[in-house]
């Protein structure tokens, strides 16, 4: 495989990480919590689409929409039941709760679908594009990138231009002050979870299409990697998550191609550590001065 096709596969993987990382970073920015269950929302999205398309024989469009709706609702419900009562609790309590939710979703999927990997239905059947002998572009890679760019542009516009988006910014800046200005904090947090989880559903679709197989623990590793991506870009920072995700995907794919398949995860994590040692708040994170 040529360098360019490796790079493009990396960009496609990176777009997937970026989509998941956006969910992490938005939730962190607003609720100041690490949503460890976010990775498993991807798995739920993928399984919903699998059930709708392969078992219930719905059309691809309906299956995808069903997956997105289920994940969006799931995100909001998780927030209402598990995280909302803990808003004033210590961050560690919330973290362990999120881990509990993650175990819950995994074991539920294990009960319903069993531990065997399921083959994900090919919802789209595009021919790969042959540019020349060496360079064959997989169309699902191109689609992943295209859709991700569209989503990122839409999300940036939404956050900066609409009233709800600015409310989200305000809440992440200062919850108390935003409340005094008439922002409905609870609603804003729910919307953030809804958006983050729907992005996770889209990422679940791309995951299924790219790897072809899904299982109850599918979401765990991409979830951790996307979390790393969010931290790499500066957690809480939306452009940072996009940058971090894409960088991480490219690094992972290039090290798989040119260094070692087994060590690619180690290389990805090492990059994170090096970046954080040089810039302790991530690539695009702001430095916060401590007040005494």
């Amino acid at each position, binding site marked *: 495989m040529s360098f360019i096709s490796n790079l493009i596969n990396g960009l496609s993987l990176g777009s997937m990480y970026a989509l998941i990382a956006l969910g992490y970073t938005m939730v962190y920015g607003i609720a100041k919590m690490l949503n460890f269950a976010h990775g498993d929302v991807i798995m739920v999205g993928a399984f919903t689409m699998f059930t709708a398309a392969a078992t219930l024989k719905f059309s691809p469009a309906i299956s995808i929409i069903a997956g997105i709706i289920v994940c969006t609702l799931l995100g909001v419900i998780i927030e209402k039941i*598990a995280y909302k009562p803990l808003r004033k609790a210590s961050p*560690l309590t*919330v973290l*362990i709760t999120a881990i*509990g939710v993650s175990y819950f979703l995994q074991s*539920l999927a294990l009960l319903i679908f069993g531990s065997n990997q399921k083959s994900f239905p090919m919802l789209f059947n595009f021919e790969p594009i042959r540019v020349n002998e060496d360079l064959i572009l997989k169309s699902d890679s191109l689609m992943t990138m295209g859709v991700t760019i569209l989503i990122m542009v839409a999300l940036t516009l939404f956050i900066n231009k609409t009233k709800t988006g600015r409310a989200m910014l305000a809440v992440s800046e200062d919850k108390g002050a935003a409340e005094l200005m008439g922002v409905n904090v609870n609603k804003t947090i729910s919307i953030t979870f809804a958006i983050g989880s729907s992005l996770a559903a889209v990422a679940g679709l791309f995951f299924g299409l790219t790897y072809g197989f899904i299982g109850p623990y599918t979401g765990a590793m991409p979830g951790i990697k996307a979390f790393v991506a969010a931290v790499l870009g500066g*957690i809480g920072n939306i452009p940072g998550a996009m940058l971090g995700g894409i960088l991480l995907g490219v690094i992972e794919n290039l090290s798989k191609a040119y260094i070692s398949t087994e060590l690619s995860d180690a290389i990805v994590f090492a990059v*994170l550590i090096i970046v954080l*040692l040089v810039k302790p708040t991530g690539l695009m994170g702001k430095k916060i001065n*401590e007040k005494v």
Partner: protein
Amino acid sequence: MKKNNLNIHNLITYGIVVAAFLFVSILVWTGNASRHLQAMLVPIGLNIILAVSLNLIVGFLGELTLGHAGFMSVGAYAGCLFAIKYAEILPTAVRFPLAMIIGGLVACVFGIIIGVPVLRLKGDYLAIVTLAFGEIIRSIIINLEFTGGASGLKGTPQNSNFYIVFVVIMITLVVITNLVNSRAGRAICSIRDNRIAAESLGINITYYKLLAFVIAAFFAGVAGVIYGHNLSILQASVFDYNRSIEILVIVVLGGMGSIRGSVIAAVIITALPEMLRSLADYRMLIYAVVLIAMMLLNGSQKFDKYKGRMNIGGLFTLLKNKKSAKEAG
């Protein structure tokens, strides 16, 4: 007076462990312990050692780390490789303690290597970096030749038993409780309570952070060696971040900064999935629900009246308060 109280508090903790040990020993001697129970004793003991040592970082130093399993794996491989090499030469009574010390010291070295750069970070950044280090250690062990790679390290003599684990638990408890009540321990707690104030009082933050980190790493390494001597194959895939999280769950559930809580929570969390075995496929689901429910009860404002009482350490305080209230009234 205060110091005396602390000593009594510690003695009660030791007493609970000794009593539990004697109780189980009697069960084993009289042949009343099922094979199931006997197989669970070493894992429970290991989780006690791991949780008590992690509590030093999370509960007393106040920093979140998700890489405790990484130290455990480094210690396990170092100790087991030593044990395999000298299996014929040294008698078990010399070899096993030596392996534990070597495992612990190697974990210490890794604690320093990782701790020096990483402890500059705070909060969630520290958490993700320690998680990353744990995963790096795991990937490297899987890719090395002399560690047996992905198929695992075979041939470690199976010397671990319940009695050795008990001795190590007691050493861990004595060292950590005494450290916490010492000058160094108070310095560590002051970093947790207010870093800036501690720094302005002349406490060397980096030194004490590293001290807590390295001591915790040592015991994690020792636990790893015992783990390696308990199984016929040592596999690196066991030491992933889920293992670190399991230990963290024990610490948080037991109450941060409560050593006795860690001990009791370690028993419960290790035994719970086994006790739920009859529920077969549903056990992990129930485990998850129990975990969420306990955290909600513990952290939610709706249950604020009972706050701090739902964890085990808090339960003791509650009982003690009631007792002293009774005595006073």
